[in-house]
């Protein structure tokens, strides 16, 4: 498998009046061609900023300050705004969290999809509208040709998210980044959207990064899962390994709180006390140590690096000195 996207040591800082506050602290992440990667972590851990930094969409005052992100032979973090703009939609598609507000309320659905097509492929308007109808059909919207004339407020949340997916697919991107695309939807609709994306991914042979704070939701979609905590990857493994042999105490905590998932989205973690550190107030050493039941003194000494887990899948890596036995080795 070849890497489509290879992020190394990415750091992101927020410019505050009191100085820069670090939100993303050295993320390493690989997405292979055609692979689907799930990124899991509590809200505020830097999932969205990480993805936005790749395509130059970080908000004002927030900057990627270090690291590299190789995509198709070039470093995204070194590209000019103009190069990044050309890449957006055409190479890297996005689907955002809130379908209710992510569509232009004064523009017809068909026009919004067609706009992307006209702009990215130079299609003429009639051809673009025809193609827009096909895309709506592809994402499972009933009577797609009539829907082209609808305004967003005439569609349900689930339908709107399907429209967002159609727009995200318009430029036939090689990588589709879905940032919590089902958080705002009903549970039954969530499952439908997951199924849709899985099917489209196989059909269109694209890679998918699916961001969520809901481990259970992407169990059936992701090939691999990266667990984020406070702006660092703490565990990265094939999906079955994450569920069968979670190594990091935080991952175990996430899995321990799974049963509550069906009725409530996991925004708090009942089995893990405390809250993640605020940006700019990272503890020394392992950022999870203050909340960790297994923490020892050595945890606060140095930031643990991602290392292979002995006796597990070769792709299974974790950033914890306790569960990988490094603490004993050091002692």
């Amino acid at each position: 498998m070849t890497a489509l996207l290879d992020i190394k040591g990415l750091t992101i800082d927020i410019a505050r009046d009191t100085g820069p506050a670090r939100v993303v602290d050295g993320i390493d992440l690989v997405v292979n061609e055609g692979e689907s990667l799930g990124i899991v972590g509590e809200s505020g851990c830097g999932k969205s900023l990480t993805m936005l930094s790749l395509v130059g969409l970080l908000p004002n005052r927030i900057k990627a300050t270090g690291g590299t992100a190789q995509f198709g032979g070039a470093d995204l973090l070194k590209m000019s705004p103009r190069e990044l703009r050309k890449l957006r939609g055409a190479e890297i598609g996005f689907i955002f969290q809130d379908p209710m507000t992510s569509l232009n309320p004064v523009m017809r659905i068909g026009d919004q999809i067609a706009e992307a097509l006209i702009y990215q492929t130079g299609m003429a308007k009639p051809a673009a509208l025809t193609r827009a109808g096909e895309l709506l059909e592809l994402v499972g919207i009933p009577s797609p040709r009539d829907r082209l004339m609808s305004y967003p407020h005439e569609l349900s949340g689930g339908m709107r998210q399907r429209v967002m997916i159609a727009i995200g697919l318009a430029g036939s991107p090689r990588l589709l980044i879905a940032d919590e695309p089902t958080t705002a939807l009903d549970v039954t609709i969530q499952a439908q959207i997951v199924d849709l994306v899985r099917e489209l991914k196989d059909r269109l042979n694209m890679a998918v990064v699916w961001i969520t704070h809901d481990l259970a939701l992407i169990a059936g979609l992701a090939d691999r899962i990266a667990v984020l905590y406070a702006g660092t990857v703490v565990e990265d493994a094939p999906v079955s390994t994450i569920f069968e042999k979670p190594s990091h105490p935080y991952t175990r905590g996430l899995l321990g709180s799974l049963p509550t998932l069906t009725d409530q989205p996991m925004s708090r973690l009942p089995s893990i006390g405390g809250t993640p550190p605020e940006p700019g107030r990272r503890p020394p050493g392992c950022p999870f140590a203050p909340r960790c039941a297994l923490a020892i003194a050595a945890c606060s000494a140095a930031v643990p690096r991602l290392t292979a887990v002995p006796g597990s899948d070769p792709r299974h890596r974790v950033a914890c000195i306790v569960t990988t036995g490094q603490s004993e080795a050091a002692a």
Partner: protein
Amino acid sequence: MSSVTTQIEDERPSSLWRDAWKRLRRNKLALTGLGVIAVLVIFAAFGPWLTPYDFLSQNLDARNLAPSLSHPFGTDDLGRDVASRVIYGARTAFLVAVLVTAIALAIGVLLGAIAGFYGGTFDKVLMWVTDMTMSVPQLLLVVVINASLKQPITLWMEARYLATMNPIWRNGAIIDFALVFGSMAIISWPPYARLVRAQVLSIRNRPYVTAARALGLTNRLILMRYVLPNAMGALIVAVSAGLGTAMVLESAFSFLGVGVNPPTPSWGNMISDGLRVWTNYPHLLVAPAAVLAVVTVAFNFLGDGLNDALNPKGQK
């Protein structure tokens, strides 16, 4: 393709504007306002064909007549039909209001959109200029502009007349209107610029704008198709109120003699004339003043109605 589009459009009566129109139609006050304005627009447009008398023709045998069947608003001190003059005044008022608002809107939308969307130095300078303009009393500004420009323009036009012998260059009304349009536009654009800037600032961070950026659309396209159209509602409300304000301003300036000057009828200069003789001939004051008051109220009703219709949840 377009025929297909219109066809489907017809089958599908729910569009944002149609919804807003439906809400507006339920608002009696707004409809009344709209009706009054419509009647005045018709008078303003077709006045010369509707009025029984010429607004300029004097009849010294019929001076200062009280309202009667043949002169519904009476006649003035030169025996001119007041009703005809009020109707012609509507023409002046609408002409000034529409032109001034159009100029002010064009400047305001352009500058406000650029400032709000791109920010930076341009934004700071624009804010500074609008602060300055809006802090000087409007009347003072207009008087200053008039006083400093009237003479140069008059001289220039006289020179044009001598060069071309075209009588149009000796038409004093043109100078009046040019100065009125110009000075009123200068005091009227800053509020539009600020409104558009504020709208753009709030809209440019909405999720659908981020989504449009994620599609790689250019800034220009995003501004034109995603940001400005969503500011339309607020802008329409402001324009409705602005038209009313512009009419009142025109009357105020004409009243004070810095606007439209006689013999061109303006409600303002008619009120000013009427004020001098109102104890003897109250109709000369009441007729233009009442019409001005009714139009102002009509624009307010319409503006309120539009606000409710275009912002149904009360959000701006």
